[in-house]
């Protein structure tokens, strides 16, 4: 039985519960209800497809946030070997909402940095629900520099609702901490591969969220602002309800849209219902893409890599440059 479900999953969950009861009846009372069970199973299968095959953007945001969705640590476990976790920013605190360390992917040495959400309330409190404080970005910065020094390709996992909106985070300079990550990422002389696995919430996500290849899970989202935040700006007070739903539609925050816009490079399929319905297959798909990216990028000369990364960023933008006196420099070149 499911511990957790969203409203739109309720009818499906009810059928699943009925099925469980029938099965219990069958085994406990030796009732001959095989036919009823078979019928119900078929109904469930159909409803399962109907529930999940045409998810709205908002439903997919919900799936990206599902408490059972695999976390960074799950993918590290499933995809890599010999992970050694490193800790600390050497200045203030070990922020557990960002984890990182050395690992091997099919034997290749890499550095990993990722947002880490908890599995339960206690873990989530320790990890601040995956929302970093400035010391988290500074820990990431330290690991980026280590990766650079020891020529380890960097693989990041993005899964955060965003930077933490708290007093202390502002006091300790989360803005400049994020900015310094962005600066560092742009000049790292090793391949940088990003996997957006759940939530990609604004600056807190971006701090470890761009590189030479960006892979995204089918139901993950990556957005300039959370749908709730957007809604509360657009329709004052309507942040929590219908507003967020509408915002999720207009923000263009899903993998397919971002692929179309050229923000990301590749999408990893999830099983119907989301990654938590088949974590192993998602991990396999992700691993394949990570390995491919590693292979493609490893042969590129470090200077070339930095140049290419810059060019990639430079090409992101939609604008019209209407005639008149011609632009003095063509920067894209």
């Amino acid at each position, binding site marked *: 039985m499911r511990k957790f479900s969203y409203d739109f999953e309720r009818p499906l969950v009810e059928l699943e519960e009925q099925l469980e009861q029938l099965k219990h009846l069958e085994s406990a009372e030796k009732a001959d209800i095989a036919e009823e069970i078979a019928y119900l199973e078929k109904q469930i299968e159909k409803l399962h497809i109907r529930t999940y095959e045409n998810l709205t953007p908002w439903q997919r945001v919900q799936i990206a946030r599902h408490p059972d969705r695999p976390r960074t640590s799950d993918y590290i476990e499933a995809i890599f070997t010999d992970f050694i976790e490193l800790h600390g920013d050497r200045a203030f605190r070990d922020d557990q909402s960002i984890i990182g360390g050395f690992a091997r992917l099919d034997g290749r040495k890499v550095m990993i940095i990722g947002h880490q959400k908890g599995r339960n309330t206690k873990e989530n409190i320790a990890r601040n629900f995956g929302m970093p404080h400035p010391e988290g970005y500074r820990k990431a910065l330290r690991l980026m520099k280590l990766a650079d020094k020891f020529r380890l390709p960097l693989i990041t996992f993005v899964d955060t609702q965003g930077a933490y909106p*708290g007093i202390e985070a502002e006091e300790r300079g989360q803005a400049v901490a994020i900015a310094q990550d962005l600066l560092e990422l*742009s000049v790292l002389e090793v391949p940088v591969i990003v996997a957006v696995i759940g939530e990609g919430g604004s*600056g807190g996500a*971006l701090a470890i969220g761009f590189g030479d290849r960006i892979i995204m899970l089918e139901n993950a989202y*990556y957005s*300039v602002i959370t749908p709730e935040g957007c809604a509360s700006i657009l329709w004052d007070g309507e942040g929590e309800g219908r507003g967020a739903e509408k915002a999720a539609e207009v923000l263009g925050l899903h993998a397919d849209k971002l692929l179309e816009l050229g923000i990301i490079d590749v999408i990893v399929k999830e099983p119907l219902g989301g990654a938590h319905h088949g974590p192993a297959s998602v991990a396999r798909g992700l691993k394949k893409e990570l390995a491919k990216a590693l292979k493609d990028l490893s042969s590129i000369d470090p200077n070339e890599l930095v140049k290419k990364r810059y060019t990639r*960023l430079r090409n*992101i933008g939609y604008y019209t440059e209407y005639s008149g006196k011609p*632009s003095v420099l063509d920067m894209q070149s």
Partner: protein
Amino acid sequence: MPIGEWFKKQDKRLPENPTLEKRAVPDGVWEKCPGCGEPIFIKELEKNSKVCPKCDFHFPLSAYERVHYLVDASSFDELWANLCPEDPLCFVAGKSYTDSISAAKAKTGMNDALVCGRAQIDGRNVAVAAMDFRFIGGSMGSVVGEKIARITELATDEDRPLIIVSSSGGARMQEGMISLMQMAKTSAAIAHHSRRGLPYISVLAHPTSGGVTASFATLADIIIAEPNAFIGFTGPRVIEQTIKQKLPKNFQTAEFNLDHGMIDMIVNRVDMKRTISRLLDYLDVNGVVG
């Protein structure tokens, strides 16, 4: 990103109608200071870099006014003024993005929220950029990001110091992830400028927040703020809603940022050009031209 907060809030420091507009109003020979409530002659105000001579209140400036008060007379050579925003997401929610753009263009006479170009400060060649908060809250979309990148690259290629005056609600929501990525794009441009050993001075004007604070605006060698400017990442309303408590009194002011080690100094706008010129004297190895 707290862009929206700045749209709606009746902020004492941000009068609804910027003074630039008021100038056209017939009885506009004087203006009431939002700081001290006193009437100030506009002529006097303009001579004083639009700082109230009585209470030091810093009136909001348009991007062109910022440049005007910062660089040598007639030295400014604007670049890329003809870059216009598009609407890649066909963003409609309540108001459409294209309507917002049209309204902002009409209000400001600008194509987007940033003005940039070559200029001189006390005879020294610089590259300068200034944001305009009136244009959709000075938010950074493709055009702002592109122009910051271009002016930074020009500074890199021509060995010029870079001076950027920020005033922004952050990334421009209406362009979605394309806006967010401008943070990375501008930061990367700054990285390459810095690696050439060139100086970059960032001026934070009221208000500077969100994705602008978390990218190019805080990656400078020297960071200067105008007095009493709001400077932060997350807007105060969002923080209050999250932590469910009142914020400290001077939270996210320029002074708060100075105490917390985030900026080098707070400089009255009247002294801004002189201060930047003195700083460039120390930082610019290429020296003064002519």
